[in-house]
């Protein structure tokens, strides 16, 4: 079931909310159980076959968690370690089979010229998310950080529908206590109004902005494979549209997840914080898919040694973390290259900061407005180039796109624009600007989408800044509050939210899945 579907908005959500608060008056356990059952229905609506897999994974991980905890009580460190190793191996094996087996076999086949086949393996939705969530639970249990082992709460923590399919990657220490709080089960007007507002902001981002941009992306990225040589404008247009589509898609999804959860009185961690406003790649990764970055840092980068084992090892750890982070997004070489590219960016960024510190400068010192804008632009361009690799079907397509973006196919403007621009077009042509037959994949309308979206991305406050008065999410970084657009439960706000919701709802017929559902 999709958040951006009529069935979800008008049937599922009201039914689950009513059931939850009605049952909560009888028993908190019933209400939590109801929410877990509803979440399983949400998951199974897509493909019921994988409910068993999800429940099996939850039961096994919960059992291993209990055994590790019991071994901890007995101070049996060896047993604890062995149990943890078995459990993590089982989790990774499950993920490897469903997500990477065919990729591995395909890679071997292409190198060795063999014809092995495992048949079609359908990727269970959200497997990367529920596997990572539970690995974190196991590791924390092993470290003695887990305090609560209520099975209903654990089941709910893993299956909780606002995060189940595409994150955020939740941590039990921020969720289990909330499920144990009595106030969570009391209906609260503030939670509902704040939750609905955040949900509709997210829905608008997804349905109107992300899906509006999406139509321009496919033809451009499909063109190189069809033997079409992309022009400079086509390639940049396609790359920017995808960059912005992914932004609004993921930002919209994250808002919707946070908003939905808030309606049930549960505050989720922030996952997305205006990443394209970052002045460097290190900051970008503190703002993009924040809960995944946190997971990779806590459960991969730091255990690998982090920055504690010298500079060379630090860069190696960074690269390994990002390569695996790339692979987490999908079983394909483009994802690996994308991860490697970001690993490289991070290494360069860290090296640059070390150099500045060595020269007596403070990298944390605020930049001048010009330097800030320039840094944002450079970071943005680096991210765009990496997204091209991320989106491309194969490295050859990515290379063709990047070559066209670098102007290696020339700088011709579409001849259709010459006719449309009238006298201005003729004047440009007289000045030597070349107009000619391009593929016309990027039209005037696309350019309008791009510049308007960029203005929103760079200049508008984000959802948590707008909702700052009502603690919209956990772990919101401190920053300058916005005064003018700060949300209050007023008539004006109600009309604005209605307008966003209305426009989004009447456009739901062109429903599309969230990009992050595939990861």
């Amino acid at each position, binding site marked *: 079931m999709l958040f951006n579907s*009529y*069935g979800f908005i008008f049937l599922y959500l009201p039914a689950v909310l009513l059931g939850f608060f009605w049952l909560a008056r009888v028993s908190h356990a019933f209400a939590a159980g109801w929410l877990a059952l509803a979440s399983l229905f949400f998951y199974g609506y897509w493909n019921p076959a994988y409910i068993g897999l999800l429940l099996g994974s939850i039961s096994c991980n919960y059992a291993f968690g209990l055994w590790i905890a019991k071994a901890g009580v007995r101070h049996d460190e060896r047993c604890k370690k062995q149990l943890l190793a078995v459990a993590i191996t089982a989790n990774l094996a499950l993920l490897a089979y469903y997500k990477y087996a065919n990729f591995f076999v395909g890679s071997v086949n292409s190198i060795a010229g063999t014809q092995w086949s495992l048949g079609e393996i359908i990727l269970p939705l959200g497997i990367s998310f529920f596997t990572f969530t539970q690995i974190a639970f196991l590791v924390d249990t092993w470290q003695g950080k887990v305090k609560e082992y209520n099975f209903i709460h654990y089941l709910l923590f893993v299956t909780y529908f606002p995060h189940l399919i595409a994150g955020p990657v939740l941590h039990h220490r921020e969720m289990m206590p909330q499920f144990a709080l009595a106030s969570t089960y009391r209906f*609260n*007007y*503030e939670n*509902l*109004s*704040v939750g*609905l507002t955040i949900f509709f902001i997210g829905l608008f981002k997804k349905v109107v902005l992300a899906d509006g941009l999406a139509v321009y992306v496919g*033809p451009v990225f499909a063109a190189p494979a069809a033997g*079409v040589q992309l022009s400079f404008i086509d390639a940049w247009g396609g790359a920017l549209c995808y960059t912005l589509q992914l932004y609004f898609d993921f930002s919209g999804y994250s808002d919707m997840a946070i908003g939905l959860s808030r309606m049930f009185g549960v505050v989720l961690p922030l996952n997305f914080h205006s990443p394209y406003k970052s002045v460097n790649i290190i900051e970008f990764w503190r703002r993009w898919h924040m809960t995944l970055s946190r997971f990779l840092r806590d459960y991969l980068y730091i255990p690998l040694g982090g920055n504690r084992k010298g500079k060379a090892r630090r860069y190696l750890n960074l690269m390994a973390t990002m390569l695996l982070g790339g692979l987490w997004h999908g079983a394909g070489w483009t994802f690996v290259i994308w991860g490697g590219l970001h690993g490289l960016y991070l290494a360069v960024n860290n090296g640059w900061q070390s150099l500045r510190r060595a020269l007596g400068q403070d990298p944390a010192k605020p930049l001048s407005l010009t330097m800030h804008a320039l840094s944002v632009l450079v970071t943005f361009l680096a991210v765009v180039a990496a997204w091209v690799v991320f989106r491309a079907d194969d490295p050859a397509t990515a290379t063709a796109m990047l070559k066209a973006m670098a102007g290696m196919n020339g700088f011709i403007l*579409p*001849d*259709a624009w*010459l*006719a*449309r621009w009238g006298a201005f077009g003729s004047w440009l042509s007289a000045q030597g600007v070349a107009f000619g*037959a*391009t*593929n*016309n*994949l990027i039209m005037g309308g696309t350019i309008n989408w791009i510049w308007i979206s960029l203005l929103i991305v760079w200049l508008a406050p984000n959802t948590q800044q707008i909702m700052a008065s009502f603690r919209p999410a956990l772990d919101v970084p401190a920053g300058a509050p916005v005064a003018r657009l700060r949300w*209050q*439960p*007023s*008539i004006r*706000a*109600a*009309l604005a*939210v*209605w307008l966003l*919701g*209305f426009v989004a*709802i*009447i*456009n*739901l*017929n062109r429903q599309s899945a969230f990009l992050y559902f595939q990861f």
Partner: protein
Amino acid sequence: MSTPHRRFLLLLTACFGVTLLPVFALNLMLLNDTLGNNRKALLASQWQQRTRGITYAPTLSDTHLFKTLRLNDRLAEIDTVVFGSSTAMGITRQAFPDTLRIYNYAQSGQALSTAIAEAEYLQQHAPQVKWLVIPLDWSLGFIYTPDPVPAADISAATALQQAQAPSRRIPLLDRMRDALSYPRVASLFAIFKSALRAEDKPAALRGHFSQDGGDDYLCADGTAAKDFDTIHRDTCTGFRFDGSATFANSSRVGNARSLILSATVSSSKYHQSLALTKGAPDALLLQRLAALGEHAARNSGGVILFLPPLLPGMETEFLRHPQLAAYLQNTKRTLDEWARRHHLAILDAGQSERFGCRADEFIDEHHAVASCYEKIFRPFWRNVLRPDGSINLSADNLM
């Protein structure tokens, strides 16, 4: 603490309630009355048979049932049928000599393969139909598409049966989704706008929501009209008694140059239909057309083939194109040789400016209105019509 939030929620719920609920309910009513509702097609067809006026049954993009009912009603009195897609819908009775009695059976999106199948059906079941007018549309790629020719049965009973088939019924959930969709909301808004403009506003609203169709009215030329759809009301949009479309809901081309330039760029459908096929017509389609021609000739009739008119200057632009010119010439050369081999005539109207058509006689790049088609067919009939009214189709002087 909760009072402002409670007020906010009440207001938000009220806003959604007063906007979404009426939109949903009214659109669902309209949808139940239009989509997949064969009754309207029957009513519209019966009304046209009775009045000879202008009408159509919703939707304009799915005209098969209405047109088939009309064809069957007219079948006994006609001897000429025009086939093809919406491109050919502009052809009226006035484009033909008085000795021919035509029905324009062109339907939205009808491929050449379907047109051939339907013509074959008529040859078998309605031998009084001697003349078959079929467009060979290169611009939309129909002559290149290697579609297998389907089996066709265009009797009224079969058309009704097909329209009622479960596969054509729209599930309730889809109707509900459609009822809240943007195009439906925009259409509902247009209905209210037109009702507000009407003199008798309540009657106008009733006409849209509770009656099978609007009231009868007269078009500018005195022809009766009745609207069975809730959109395009009182505009004389639809089909005339001879099956031709009025295109009254479409504005005429203003900036032809811009359209022509856009048509020649590589992402346009026109460009692609030539580039992808290199202008080679499908041999199987030509073979079936030749067989149609032979059968029609044996029946003292013939097949009149024509390359539909394009916006003045558009085909010339393609014939100047460095890559596409060769493909288009290939198409014309192949068709010419094929037509001569099979003693068929092809009227090439692609360069509509040669016939005196103007840009304002088009609604887009390839949809010409009646007046342009009349100009195109006039010299054709001069060439082929004998003084005694008989027709002498020959390939010699047409391409």
